[in-house]
């Protein structure tokens, strides 16, 4: 029973990934490239410690982003504004971080709190609009993204930027006390080479803790129960003493607060500053990862890792003269295929349950007759 359960929960994502690789292969064939060759290059390129570190580096913020999106999904809220929330939160956190001088752990805490609060406020605007005025959160968070992008551009150019020799606008380099130590020892302790030019981010630890906290909060606390039932059935929630509107607001705050953490892995890691070319798009990709991982903390971790590996592997294609966009195509197809695959597998499982339950009932009826 246990084994078949694991088998069926992996069936959908695995078959979706295989299908997507197949689609990628067809596209490669069309443009006249041997897919086996291309995939072989990707695999051999990925299997080294620098690639590993790079994949983790990409996966950590993606995972945090997926968790932020998944919190909204738990009560049928679609927070598309994770993108704007994390960028504006990272900028404020960078600015605060460079402008305070504190003892290390406290400095880091202040930066994290700033990011969480700014992210929560930005998402909270959408939450408040939904609760008080009935504005759909999809619309308002999309609009808030645009506002965030413009506000960032303005503030970075006029208020927050510091003098620097490069043309790249920046909130300034964070002092060492604000940086998280890297975790490269995780690689070197097993005898592999130190990764070159990239680090395993210290934020990995926080991301893992976040995943555990997410699981406990949503499935093991009264708050999580009230959050989920507000999404499932607002009428029943209200009768049970839960105010679904309040939960909408709290959920948006929570989702935005987590979104605020997305940029910190980069901010407090190798980059050490909020700059004009701070990585973008993680908020949107996080939606895909949440879908791929079915809002489950472990599923989303595997999904984030997969996307991280693929992003890294894309680099080699460029070197070999193969269009790296093939990876984006594969990622896109995975998201579509996984939604379909979950539906199909869900039906297979349901059909199996029907037979199993009917047999169980027959057996118990038989026992009653015999007794």
């Amino acid at each position, binding site marked *: 029973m246990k084994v078949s359960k694991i088998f069926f929960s992996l069936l959908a994502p695995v078959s979706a990934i295989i299908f997507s690789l197949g689609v990628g292969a067809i596209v490669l064939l069309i443009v006249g490239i041997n897919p086996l060759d291309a995939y072989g290059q990707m695999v051999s390129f990925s299997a080294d410690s620098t690639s590993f570190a790079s994949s983790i580096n990409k996966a950590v913020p993606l995972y945090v982003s997926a968790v932020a999106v998944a919190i909204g999904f738990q009560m049928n809220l679609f927070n598309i504004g994770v993108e704007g929330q994390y960028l504006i939160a990272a900028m404020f956190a960078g600015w605060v971080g460079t402008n305070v001088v504190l003892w290390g752990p406290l400095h880091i805490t202040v930066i994290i709190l700033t990011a969480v609060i700014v992210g929560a406020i930005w998402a909270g605007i959408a939450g408040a609009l939904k609760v008080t005025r009935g504005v759909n959160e999809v619309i308002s968070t999309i609009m808030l993204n645009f506002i965030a992008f413009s506000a960032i551009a303005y503030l970075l150019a006029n208020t927050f930027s510091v003098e620097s020799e490069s043309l790249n606008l920046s909130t300034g380099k964070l002092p060492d006390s604000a940086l998280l130590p890297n975790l490269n020892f995780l690689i070197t302790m097993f005898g592999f080479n130190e990764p070159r030019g990239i680090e395993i981010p210290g934020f990995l630890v926080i991301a893992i803790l976040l995943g555990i906290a997410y699981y406990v909060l949503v499935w*093991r606390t009264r708050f999580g129960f009230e959050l989920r*039932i507000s999404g499932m059935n607002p009428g029943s929630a209200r009768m049970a003493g*839960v105010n679904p509107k309040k939960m909408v607001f709290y959920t948006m705050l929570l989702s935005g607060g987590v979104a605020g953490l997305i940029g910190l892995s980069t901010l407090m890691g190798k980059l050490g500053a909020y700059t004009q070319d701070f990585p973008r798009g993680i908020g949107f990709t996080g939606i895909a990862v949440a879908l791929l991982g079915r809002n489950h903390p472990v599923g989303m971790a595997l999904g984030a890792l997969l996307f991280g590996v693929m992003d890294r592997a894309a680099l080699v294609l460029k070197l070999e003269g193969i269009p790296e966009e093939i990876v984006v195509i594969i990622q896109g197809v995975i998201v579509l295929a996984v939604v379909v695959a979950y539906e199909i597998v869900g039906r297979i499982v349901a059909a199996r349950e029907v037979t199993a339950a009917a047999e169980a009932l027959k057996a118990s009826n038989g026992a009653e007759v015999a007794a």
Partner: protein
Amino acid sequence: MSRVLSRPVGILGDGDSATLWHSGTEGASHRQEWVVADNGRAVELIAITKTYPGVIANDKVNLSVGLGEIHAIVGENGAGKSTLMNMLYGMQIPDSGEIKVRGELEHFRSPKDAIAHGIGMVHQHFMLADNLTVLENIVLGFEPKSGMRIDFDGARKKIIEIGSRYGMTLDPDTLVEHLSVGQRQRVEILKVLFRGATILILDEPTAVLVPQEVDELFDNLKVLRDDGVTLIFISHKLDEVLSVANSITVMRGGKTVATVLPQDVDAGQLAELMVGSELPVPETTASTVTDHVALEVRNLTHRSNDDRTLLDDVNLTIRNGEIVGIAGVEGNGQSELIDALMGIIDPETGSVLLNGEDISTRHTIDRHEAGIGIIPEDRHRQGLLLSAPLWENVMLGHQSQAPFVRGPFIDMKGTRSATEEVVERFDVKTPNIDVPAHALSGGNQQKMIVGKEMLAEPDVLIAAHPTRGIDVGAQSAVWDELRAARQGGLAVLLISADLDELIGLSDTLLVIFDGKIVASLDPGDVTPEILGSYMTGVKVAS
């Protein structure tokens, strides 16, 4: 040999006006002639089997319905009536067995197929859009076209024609939100007839109606039958079935146990076939009413946003060991009264006192904790989490209290053992407590709701339609629970549409009409007729 029915569609007058529109036919008139095999059977279901998780809903069921008859299907909830009808209507596909319509073997994959074969279904829960007119609701999804436009004028004419033919007059241009429950049901029936149905399935059509509306419905059904329409009628109410049906099929435990003629049986025999035992009668034992007032409502008044008075100076008192029944046609303030008691709405004036303490400003969750139990009027929308496992359903409403939580965390062990206890003590039939609530039959869902409220040992129980839509067996179980709890000193506010239930269980019977308590009656010497006249506002107590 076969014969062609002279008026198979059974809707329209003769001559050229006898047209039916089909969407996409560009206004072309079309009249469908059904060829019927010589045995004169409208519907034959042969050895139909359908299983769900943990339940064999239909086990080799046979059913034969004659052309132009009213055929009633009776049985407890979970007996498989709705499942059977859903398969005839193409909403579900049988695992095995044959469906024959007018002698022809059919394989319906969706309701579309069934509609194309002249089968229509009127569901228990109406599927109408409140903010559209009667006309718009009827044509929705089946729009007659005239060129590029929807032919509303033609449709309006047609609806009036159908309506007057069967005595179901309705203004096609009224908004559905202004209609009574009975009128809405007529819209549903017209909708099905408009689509050309000659075989109508009615799923518990009387469950939502007041006595006067039931009579009107039956008159309409008889006119339809006399015109050649075949009617399949699902019900629990045996007296109604006996008065209107031409033949009756009884289902029990997913099987058809008998098909009888109404003149050959009485209600008692029918009930016995249904449950395999005596029909339970709601009847309280000696009074257990004490002097201690558990719940008191004072001068409760509430208005809607558009300033309609929903509750008008409601006063009531419930003592420990007392069941106070509230009779009334639905929509006369019952829902608002429940919401005000539970703290879901904030009434304009008035107060609610629990054991002498004013709880008017307390939150819903505090009222749960203070000892008010609730069996909500709409199970699916207010009482259950259909996709969640049973243990989460049992926790619902008690998620702030032991044994369900410890601090901010869910106490899984406590929750699971409480759920096991509910399942055990209240005889909830389920494979285990991890199945989602939608896997249970209506009766078992209700037993679970009653069970979880009783387990919390409340001081006051608000029981809204506690036995609506559940089978006779579950009904008697719920009644027994209420009686036992009353014996133990529970104060119960019973809101119901089932007059027998109200009269049988209540110590005091109040009638609510237009938001006002218009009468306080002794259930010992009241008749459904007297009650009915108060309920409809015909009679007003001095």
